[in-house]
């Protein structure tokens, strides 16, 4: 066995053997590599104008916003002495979900706050059981952009061509195209179109264009969204005036930083950073991204068999 595989293999086996029944953690997909696997590495310089490849949160499985909601990424976080990353762990003594309230709120307008309060999420500090939620995403409705990266950003493949950057997301097998062929964003974001060939149409995933800000920083801009989705799993709102800036900075050969900036004058008084430099790690190009496809029929069955009795909405027998 090549030596570079020995440490991750041993750590995986050790982890699986000793995981206690009183706690749990997200399990790592075989084949993925994290920064803690290579504590002594000295990454090579970054290639110019290149963000292609298979990318995974670098600090560990589940690193990122997850269900906490934008601006609450560090909430309830449990720091383990001597462990470089424990951001996906919650303090066992923390008062969940109250500790999920972000220390700094997005700069809501009056309409933004009113819309937020009309959203009943299953995650974040306002969480309710799933059958009581009005989250538009369960049931396999599109989560849209940027929610797909402000929730479960999982292993994703970025493909660069002459005319565009395509991102293939693991969650629900979704993809987006960021055009780099010189076109401009739709001028009227509320009746967006790419031009005369296309009828105006608001989109779940918006319209996206991108360019290189410098040799190592690719910046995408998106608008033309419909207003049927949420910003994140905690129910943060957006309108059809939403404009998103996504920034990818190639730090070195093995690392990329992803930043998401929200600008929506109907919901927020000024632009704000929803995701700040999430560190991603380049994976093997042969890594086969797992299938995680949302099935409406299976979701319906799940709701009937599990979600309803879990919320006390049926006549399931008492134990």
């Amino acid at each position, binding site marked *: 066995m090549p030596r570079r595989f020995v440490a991750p293999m041993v750590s995986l086996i050790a982890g699986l053997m000793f995981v206690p029944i009183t706690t749990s953690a997200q399990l790592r997909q075989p084949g993925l590599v994290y920064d803690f696997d290579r*504590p002594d590495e000295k990454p090579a310089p970054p290639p110019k104008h290149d963000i292609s490849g298979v990318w995974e949160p670098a600090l560990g499985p589940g690193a990122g916003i997850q269900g906490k909601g934008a601006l609450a990424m560090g909430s309830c976080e449990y720091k*383990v002495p001597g462990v470089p990353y424990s951001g996906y762990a919650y303090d066992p003594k923390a008062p969940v979900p109250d500790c999920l309230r972000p220390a700094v709120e997005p700069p809501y307008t009056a309409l933004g706050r009113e819309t937020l309060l009309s959203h009943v999420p299953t995650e974040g500090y306002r969480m309710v059981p*799933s059958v009581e939620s009005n989250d538009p995403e369960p049931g396999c409705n599109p989560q849209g952009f940027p929610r797909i990266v402000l929730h479960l950003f999982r292993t994703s493949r970025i493909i660069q061509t002459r005319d565009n950057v395509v991102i293939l997301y693991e969650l629900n097998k979704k993809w987006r195209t960021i055009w780099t062929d010189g076109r401009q964003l739709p001028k009227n974001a509320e009746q967006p179109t790419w031009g005369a060939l296309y009828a105006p149409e608001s989109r779940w995933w918006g319209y996206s264009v991108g360019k290189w800000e410098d040799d190592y920083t690719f910046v995408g801009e998106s608008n033309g969204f419909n207003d049927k989705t949420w910003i994140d799993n905690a129910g943060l709102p957006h309108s059809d005036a939403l404009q998103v800036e996504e920034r990818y900075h190639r730090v070195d050969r093995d690392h990329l930083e992803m930043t998401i900036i929200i600008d929506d004058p109907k919901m927020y008084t000024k632009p704000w950073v929803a995701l700040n430099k999430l560190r991603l790690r380049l994976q093997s190009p042969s890594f086969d991204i797992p299938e995680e496809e949302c099935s409406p029929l299976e979701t319906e069955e799940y709701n009937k068999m*599990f979600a309803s009795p*879990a919320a*006390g909405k049926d006549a399931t027998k008492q134990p």
Partner: protein
Amino acid sequence: MKKRLVTTAALVFALQMASVPIFAHHGNAEFDVGKRVTVKGTVTKWFWANPHCLLSFDAKGDDGSVVHWIAETQPPRSIVPGGFGEYTFKPGDEVTVTLEPVKNGRPVGRILEVVLPDGTKLITGHLD
């Protein structure tokens, strides 16, 4: 090399020891977070599905009657690394399930661990 292996293994061990459930498709609102129940039972159905897999099993209640349990896991991609698979269970299999129950007292919960008759342990996380 040996020192590095030990360090890495200890790191993962520490990470997993320190971790507690967090959320994804749905949060923790339904669950009695931190409570643990271990139930021995007989599998009646294994539903391999998104967004969550479901294990149905029958167990004996305190009064000797049969209790129909149902317990969820994360989606397939998240539990395959813990040893679960589409064909792991079939009706009639004996299992020992440790789960986090719901607050309302019904025989419903989310799986933390399943032990098979040969001692094999299958583990889950709570992301997803």
